[in-house]
């Protein structure tokens, strides 16, 4: 009998707290979004599952000695996001950007969302119950970079407690790019602007593609060493792919290695979705600021493209400015879709890939700025 009571006391039903139950619902919601809605499933499925596992009472999967506790070390040490960034680098083709380098400025403009939401987070401190330190605000701002590994890397360094909410916001909004961006893009452009066709891009040679990642790394070493872990691993992956002499390493970096690390990273991020850290007013603030950051970044990119179109000798369709937020390749596809709507012969995809990959560099640079100024 005593045995049965002790058994009953070891069940999940007996030990559940309301917070854990709620966080499991959050986990199930993420799984639903990943599987049924196709929201960034590669990340949100493991994150959602990690949220469920880490909120199981008694089991202690995210506590010392549990699997997620050990996996989380890969985030705490910055290893997982950097390895993913290496793989992303290996998958990235800088050709369209090198063919039209001024699109880099669009990738810069779109980072405006990062700094706007940073200031927004600090401003939110006037709301009672919200308390963001400068570090928190910087970590929240990086959501506007629309780049998952960068957001996780920065959050793990500056504000590990908010990591779960920040990562979820970043990936969710990346998945929502096809819903968030079009209204903003339409509001800021005229039909005539959306119809603008752009000149075909020149073919970029292999040598330029090999030199570029090294040049990018070199510039970042000179000006912004705090960005070099991110930019360095990105450049390494990109160089491995571009140079053509280490094909097997490049293939492994962009397939098996990134897959393994993605599973581990997702689960560990999910393990930060604990009731104690997530069920705070702060989380609502983060979700709101993240959406604002995306919107501002999109707007800044489009406006910058309009300005550039004024002064450029070759036409620039303002729609491609929205791709500067990164969210590769979703944002570029959105730009392409809106272009086709206004002009069925207007294929903007390759033109939008320039600002799109520039946005990845832009947010890594912004991450470096934050890591260097905020500490």
């Amino acid at each position, binding site marked *: 009998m005593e045995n049965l009571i002790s058994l009953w006391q070891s069940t999940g039903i007996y030990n559940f707290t309301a917070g854990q139950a709620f966080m499991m619902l959050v986990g199930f919601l993420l799984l639903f979004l990943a599987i049924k809605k196709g929201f960034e499933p590669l990340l949100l499925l493991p994150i959602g599952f990690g949220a469920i596992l880490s909120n199981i009472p008694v089991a202690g999967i995210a506590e010392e000695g549990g699997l997620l506790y050990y996996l989380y070390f890969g985030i705490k040490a910055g290893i997982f996001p950097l390895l993913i960034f290496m793989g992303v680098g290996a998958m990235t083709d800088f050709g369209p950007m*090198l063919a039209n380098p001024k699109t880099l400025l669009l990738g810069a403009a779109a980072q405006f969302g990062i700094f706007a939401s940073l200031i927004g987070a600090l401003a939110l401190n006037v709301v009672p119950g919200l308390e963001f330190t400068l570090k928190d605000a910087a970590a929240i701002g990086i959501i506007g970079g629309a780049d998952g590994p960068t957001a996780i890397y920065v959050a793990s360094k500056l504000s590990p407690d908010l990591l779960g909410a920040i990562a979820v916001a970043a990936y969710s909004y990346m998945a929502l790019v096809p819903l968030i961006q079009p209204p903003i893009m339409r509001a800021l452009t005229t039909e005539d602007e959306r119809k603008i066709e752009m000149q075909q891009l020149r073919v970029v040679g292999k*040598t330029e593609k090999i*030199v*570029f990642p090294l040049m990018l790394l070199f510039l970042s070493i000179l000006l912004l060493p705090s960005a070099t872990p991110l930019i360095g691993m990105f450049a390494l992956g990109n160089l491995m792919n571009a140079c053509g002499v280490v094909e097997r390493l490049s293939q492994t970096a962009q397939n098996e290695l990134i897959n393994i690390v993605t599973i581990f990273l997702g689960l560990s991020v999910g393990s930060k979705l604990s009731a104690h850290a997530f069920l705070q007013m702060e989380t609502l603030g983060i979700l709101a600021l993240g959406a604002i950051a995306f919107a501002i970044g999109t707007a800044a990119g489009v406006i910058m493209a309009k300005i550039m179109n004024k002064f450029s000798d070759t036409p620039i369709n303002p729609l491609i400015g929205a791709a500067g937020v990164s969210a590769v390749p979703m944002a570029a596809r959105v730009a392409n879709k809106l272009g086709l709507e206004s002009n069925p012969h207007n294929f903007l995809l390759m033109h939008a890939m320039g600002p799109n990959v520039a946005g990845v560099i832009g947010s890594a640079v912004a991450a470096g700025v934050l890591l260097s100024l905020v500490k």
Partner: protein
Amino acid sequence: MFVGMGIVFLFLTMLVIVINMMSSLVQRFFPEVQANTVNVPAAAIGTDKQTIAAITAAVHQYRSKHK
């Protein structure tokens, strides 16, 4: 915090400049017989060659898995 945005712009503007320099240097001193040759065959070459390539690849893989 506008200094942050300023650095991002400064950095990417400098990157634009060095890319332009780099591209013109590379194109002048290391011109390439271009990637065309790499990208075109998919569409241009007749089906026969493709079939052969397919079979070669498949045979190769078949063997490497079932040796």
